[in-house]
């Protein structure tokens, strides 16, 4: 992230502040994400990682500052953005096929009935098939989505986010609720797609380690602020200690994994209500709290 006269950034935040339910989720955040890069949003539960994604989507208004997506205000780049919300898995009773879910990503927001024939229909089917092939979901896309595994659902949902060939992919905890082999496989898949298609990827993650090798940069959100840079710059003892405002230590294991030790959880930082109010706020409810635990991975 050196040259200042690079092309229009994919995402740019200028002195941005988000206030929800009367408290600042984070404030005065400056951030530039260059096109074609693969960037992770890290931080403890409740720090406002999903809020950052929602601000880029235009789903959360700013209390101050600016957000731009490809040089435009957020919300105007609908077709340019592929979005995977914090998951939600489909339960076994959902009697809709995976291919239908992917197809909805293409034309599900259009009014009226689709024509069952014609060139537009063939082009759409081709786009859907291509997206499904890209994530390797061909073998189970014809099955009801409630009946395939969590990892398979996640691949289909990534295909759904990709089907319109977005320039920016916003993935909110796509690795959450996957087992370790699937985490690695899905992370590698996202990295490959990003590189091959030149798509900018912003991925919210609990743990940097499964995706560390593919990352161009990280945004670390904690203590109401955010720092960005390469993982080696950001996930360090001095940077994170400054961000948290208290001493935390980053250990680097012999295989290059970074582990944050003594990390306070977000709730103790904000005196506000525990269950925060940005609408996706079930961060606190789950027990996956890897980074809630002192000594969990970054």
């Amino acid at each position: 992230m050196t040259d200042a006269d690079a092309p229009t950034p994919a995402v740019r935040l200028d002195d941005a502040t988000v206030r929800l339910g009367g408290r600042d989720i984070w404030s005065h955040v400056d951030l530039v994400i260059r096109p074609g890069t693969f960037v992770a949003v890290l931080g403890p539960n409740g720090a406002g990682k999903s809020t950052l994604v929602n601000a880029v989507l235009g789903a959360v208004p700013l209390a101050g500052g600016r957000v731009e997506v490809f040089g435009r205000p957020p919300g105007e780049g609908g077709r340019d953005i592929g979005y995977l919300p914090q998951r939600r898995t489909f339960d076994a009773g959902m009697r809709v096929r995976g291919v239908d879910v992917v197809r909805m990503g293409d034309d599900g927001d259009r009014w009226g009935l689709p024509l069952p024939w014609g060139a537009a229909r063939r082009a759409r089917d081709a786009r859907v098939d291509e997206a499904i092939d890209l994530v390797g979901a061909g073998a189970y896309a014809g099955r009801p989505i409630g009946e395939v595994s969590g990892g398979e659902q996640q691949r289909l949902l990534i295909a759904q986010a990709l089907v319109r060939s977005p320039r920016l992919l916003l993935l909110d905890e796509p690795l959450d609720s996957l087992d370790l082999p699937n985490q690695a496989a899905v992370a590698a898949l996202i990295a490959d797609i990003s590189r091959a298609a030149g798509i900018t990827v912003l991925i919210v993650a609990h743990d940097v380690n499964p995706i560390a090798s593919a990352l161009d940069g990280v945004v670390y959100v904690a203590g109401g602020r955010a720092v960005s840079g390469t993982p080696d710059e950001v996930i360090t003892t001095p940077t994170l200690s400054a961000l948290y405002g208290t001493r935390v230590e980053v250990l680097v294991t012999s295989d290059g994994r970074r582990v944050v030790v003594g990390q306070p959880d977000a709730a103790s930082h904000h005196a506000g209500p525990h269950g925060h109010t940005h609408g996706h706020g079930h961060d606190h409810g789950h027990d996956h709290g890897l980074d809630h635990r002192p000594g969990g991975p970054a």
Partner: protein
Amino acid sequence: MNPLVSAALAGPVLDPVVDLRRMLALHFMVNAFRAGTVVAVLAAVVGWLMVLRRQSFAGHTLAVVSFPGAAAAIWLGVSATVGYFAGSIAAALVIALVPRGAAGRPRSQESAVIGTVQAFALACGALFVSLYGGFLDSITGLLFGSFLGVSDGQVIALVVVAAAVLAVLAVIGRPLLFATVDGGVAAARGVPVRVLSVLFLLVLGCTAAEVSQVTGALLVFALLVMPAAAAQQVTARPVAGLALSVVFGLGVVWASLSVAFWSPWPVGFWVSTIGFALYLVAAGGRAALTRWRRRGADGRRTAGERRPEALLPGVVGA
């Protein structure tokens, strides 16, 4: 007495052509088939979406609420048809006021609110019937259905409302399906999830009011849920599911009207029983097929060490 009516009262001769001709020679039976057909198609389409949206309880309540609506209309001397629609649409608006989660999914209190509305509505229905004073027969008709008295005017009203509802669904159907299956992404794509949810409740209210007029308020589920649920057991394809739901609905209505004509038992009983049988067959068939495929896949997997997914090219009907 009309010779055809006396023939009908004498029972079927078990020759389908003769029996059908005798049945359809009676104008009230023709109207019953017309009304039943309209209602079956509408209920099958709306019901398919309702089952997918998990709003069966709301659908049931909207149907139950048509009972006090109709009872009030009769008490006030207005057409019962108006009462059915007024009750269901008013209740749809009340349920639409329940706050929802971010992704457009109902929060847990929704079912409590719906249950409260339902109990209150039934109580109001009892009140209106008692205020009206006589003619206990009408309660049975309102609650459990009667197909004898469908007038030409009612058939026209049913057709007009059904056409309007289906036209609305044709416009909003695709985004509605998106919002149903994947509310968060749909909202991010600019689909007005909340507005669609209110619109669907109104659609559901109109449908429940229509169906109530044939099956009675308490047996609406027979046409609104059973064909749709059976169709979803058979296929997960949206278009095929909708079509199959319509076929099931028509089959249930036509069969039950025919049987009810020759039997002393009420049509609502036959609609529900045939619909229930259909659902049992569909669910049982699917369970048996799943088990059979799983056993087959396990057998092949131990032989060839391949993933079961690769051996299952699309599940039931896919």
